């Protein structure tokens, strides 16, 4: 079943061309179902997705010159990009996201990234997640610092959740984020006295990582048990594709619907390190992108009007070389692309200054140059979506003034 409201809005938009209408979700914001609490959903594409084949600059001849076998064809031909604005096009595997761009609830930022020059996955992810490019001594993640800036009481132990087996760097820190892979398996399987036995054992003696983690674990388990989010079925006919991302987003949607106080949700998805056999309109990257797109589309559909209070954002540690390598793949590069989707997003637009792809415009003569620092995007997002009161300690030493923001959110 299709969510009627979205369906009507979308078809209406299609009729008028969509250019004058605001994001379809904006009017749905603060719907009674979410009690007005906002959520930020961050997805990390680990391994460095090839942003130039995600949002394709089909208006640049240099793009086609650099990629003889893996370029996505221009719009209008078979397997061609989906035209967004006459210059940029979506990879055809992202077809399921197109309606959200057209109805102005989705936007992209191109040539965005972390300014540090490293091409090490490990370092680049570390810098992006710590929020301090070039500084290795940062101990916590910037999303953890951002959540920690909000002094609400009482704090929900489920306000920051990562759908992953290990707590990601971006949520490490004193905000007490929870990592889990399966909502239904979270908790102690055993008699009540066993669970409480563990709880007091850890409460008594243990300082540091173990003790703090344990306290959060037991509180989170209690809340989850009473909210029972895993009983919630996808709504509006949403069908999540198989795979880790679909699985993560389905559960994040359940948490949002259960009103457990979720403010930041995080999921990662890997398989983007396409050094060889990347493919163009079809192939390895195309398959990964289809799953990625379908998972996000299902999430959006599932949440329906609740999406008015949610913004989903994607990131990846760096982009990939403009020129394809000898194995029909791409090597580690620099700038990349981000997606923002949800309530408050001024969508239907590809943001960011385009640096160009001719040789002299490239970063170190090989990569897309960065024109937008990822921290500018997050500064705006954290302020407008999560009402983080100050960004000073979130991005220490970085100028986060609103004048640098792109105006991606209302």
């Amino acid at each position, binding site marked *: 079943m299709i969510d009627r409201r979205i369906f009507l809005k979308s078809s209406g938009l299609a009729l008028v061309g969509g250019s004058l209408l605001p994001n379809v979700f904006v009017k749905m914001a603060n719907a009674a179902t979410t009690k007005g609490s906002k959520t930020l959903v961050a997805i990390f594409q680990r391994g460095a997705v090839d942003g130039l084949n995600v949002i394709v600059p089909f208006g640049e001849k240099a793009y086609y010159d650099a990629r003889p076998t893996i370029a996505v064809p221009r719009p209008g031909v078979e397997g061609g990009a989906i035209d967004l604005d006459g210059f940029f096009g979506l990879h055809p595997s992202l077809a399921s996201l197109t309606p959200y761009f057209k109805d102005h609830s989705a936007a992209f930022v191109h040539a965005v990234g972390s300014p540090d020059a490293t091409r090490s996955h490990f370092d680049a992810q570390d810098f992006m997640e710590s929020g301090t490019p070039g500084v290795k001594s940062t101990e916590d993640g910037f999303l953890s610092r951002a959540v920690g800036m909000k002094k609400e009481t009482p704090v929900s132990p489920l306000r920051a959740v990562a759908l992953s087996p290990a707590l990601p760097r971006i949520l490490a820190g004193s905000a007490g984020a929870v*990592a889990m892979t399966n909502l239904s398996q*979270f908790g102690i399987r*055993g008699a009540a006295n*066993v669970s*409480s036995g563990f709880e007091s054992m850890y409460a*008594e003696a243990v300082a540091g*990582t173990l003790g703090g983690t344990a306290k959060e674990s037991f509180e989170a388990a209690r809340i989850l048990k009473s909210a029972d989010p895993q009983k919630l079925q996808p709504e509006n006919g949403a069908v999540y594709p198989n795979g880790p991302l679909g699985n993560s987003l389905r559960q994040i949607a359940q948490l949002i619907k259960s009103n457990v106080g979720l403010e930041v949700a995080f999921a990662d998805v890997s398989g983007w390190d396409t*050094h060889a056999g990347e493919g163009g309109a079809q192939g390895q990257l195309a398959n990964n992108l289809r799953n990625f797109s379908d998972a996000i589309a299902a999430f959006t559909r599932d949440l329906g009007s609740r999406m008015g209070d949610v913004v989903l954002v994607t990131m990846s540690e760096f982009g990939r070389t403009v020129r394809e390598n000898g194995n029909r793949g791409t090597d580690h590069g620099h700038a990349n692309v981000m997606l923002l989707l949800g309530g408050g997003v001024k969508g239907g637009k590809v943001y960011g200054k385009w640096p160009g792809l001719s040789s002299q415009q490239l970063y170190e003569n090989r990569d897309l140059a960065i024109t937008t620092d990822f921290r500018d995007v997050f500064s705006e997002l954290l302020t407008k979506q999560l009402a983080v009161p100050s960004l000073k300690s979130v991005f220490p030493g970085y100028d986060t003034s609103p004048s640098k923001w792109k105006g991606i959110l209302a």
Partner: protein
Amino acid sequence: MNHAPKLLAGLIALAFLTGFTTSDSKLNDRQRALHALNRLAFGPRPGEVDVIMKTGVDTWIEQQLHPEGIPDRAVEARVAALPTMMLSNAQIVKTYYEPVLLARKQANAEAKNGDVDKKDVRRELMRDVPANQRPQVVMNELVAQRILRAAESDRQLNEVMVDFWMNHFNVFSGKGIDRFLLTSYERDVIRPHIWGRFEDLLMATAKSPAMLFYLDNARSMAAPENRPAMQQQRGFGGRFGFGRRAMMQRPQFQGKEGGLNENYAREIMELHTLGVDAGYTQKDVTELARVLTGWSISRERDGSGEGAAFVFRPQMHDAGTKTVLGIRFAPGGGIEEGERMIHVLAHQPATAHRIAYKLCQRLVADEPPPALVDRVAKKFLATDGDLRQTVRAVIESPEFWDPASYRAKVKSPFEYTISAVRAVNAQITDPAPIARALQQIGEPLYGAQPPTGYSDKADVWINTGALMNRLNFALSLASNKLPGVHGDVVALIPAGQAADASHSVEALALALTGGNLTEETRNTIKSRIVERKAPSEDPWDNTQLPTVAGLILGSPEFQRQ
């Protein structure tokens, strides 16, 4: 204003954070034995602390440093019973991968002719493959031998170091055909070299099909203008190794040229040797990639052997001038260029420091004391990268035996699950439930996707979800709910000691941990389990013991080593 007190306070706080406040007190004999078993083995089996105290901790360590002298027949016999353990890469590929390829080919052909779904056809065809020849058998058996050896081998330090080096030279089983190449990788590349020279280990990994495939070097070749002149002809590409074959057979790639891939060149410097901050440049990465072109994987039709082995292909090698880390290679070189660079990388001070740091982090503390790391790095350099002497330098250091190191590290998921299995003296008839638990706790074997491998630091492992899964594993194991992993906790307590609740908890704690629980933990267990019964009920019975054992194995003390 005087900053000294503030600075001092900061230093003290830092020392606390890093786990290092050198202490005048010393570990007693029991603590020493337990510490050795926790760090240099996968934890004590019941009674093992006493055995080692009797042998002498130093004697035991000396034995462990020479695993070849420890007969290990029981576990080796178990491993030998796994059919894939004796097979070469080529044999594994032939037996377990070819049915997959065949099914794929046939499915494609049938899908072309009619309106059948490729996937259905393939699934149907794979169903006809006997269960013991299905592709997953290879990884299942490899995982099984790792678990069996870690839990049951008498060469415990050897297994600890296998875990360390497999992780240092990580290869992800989920990448393409690597799931068929890892058996030989661990058996022929890692295990034979971990007590020898680092250079030999590094060279072995550089020439291993598993690594060459994982980090794409197998398909890296010189740009057309840099190939040996006589080889510049169409059509030879199809004879290249594994990596290239699948691609070259696709019509859109027929006759097209390959080129450079810098993935392995970057990681061998960043992760395997120098470390990311050692001062090499992007140019060095690209130039090293050129040096390593032609290091590839053989195919049967090369005619030189059964295939799926290392091969150097001169026709893929970059014949131009190259300069890496200031070392210049004149045109016309071959495999010796890469060998020279591996020799150079293996002997750099930055490499010595990186290996020393990682070994100290694994064996001593999450943030190892810099002075220790420096000493171990010196030993590495002075001994031509002798790994036995390097590891010995860590173990014989005062920092290793400092009370500040005792129980200072949180166990990794692998260390935790295996130490729990050993603690209850479990008989493993099927390691699969342990492999599943490792997945849930966050460390699936051979499952680290990035070339960094898994972390050796506690804060990465300890998070809410993972901790819950640890506790649940402890409960399942202690109450015998893991099929194929059988432990009898009641049998661990000497007769007569289980008669009374308080003594039972103490005796079980000693049997399971080889040491003491804190008073808080002991009291908690007693109050929650033992004393919750009404006075009118039977005061104590053995049916409580599995729950008590589960609580002990889940306790904060048992998370540490």
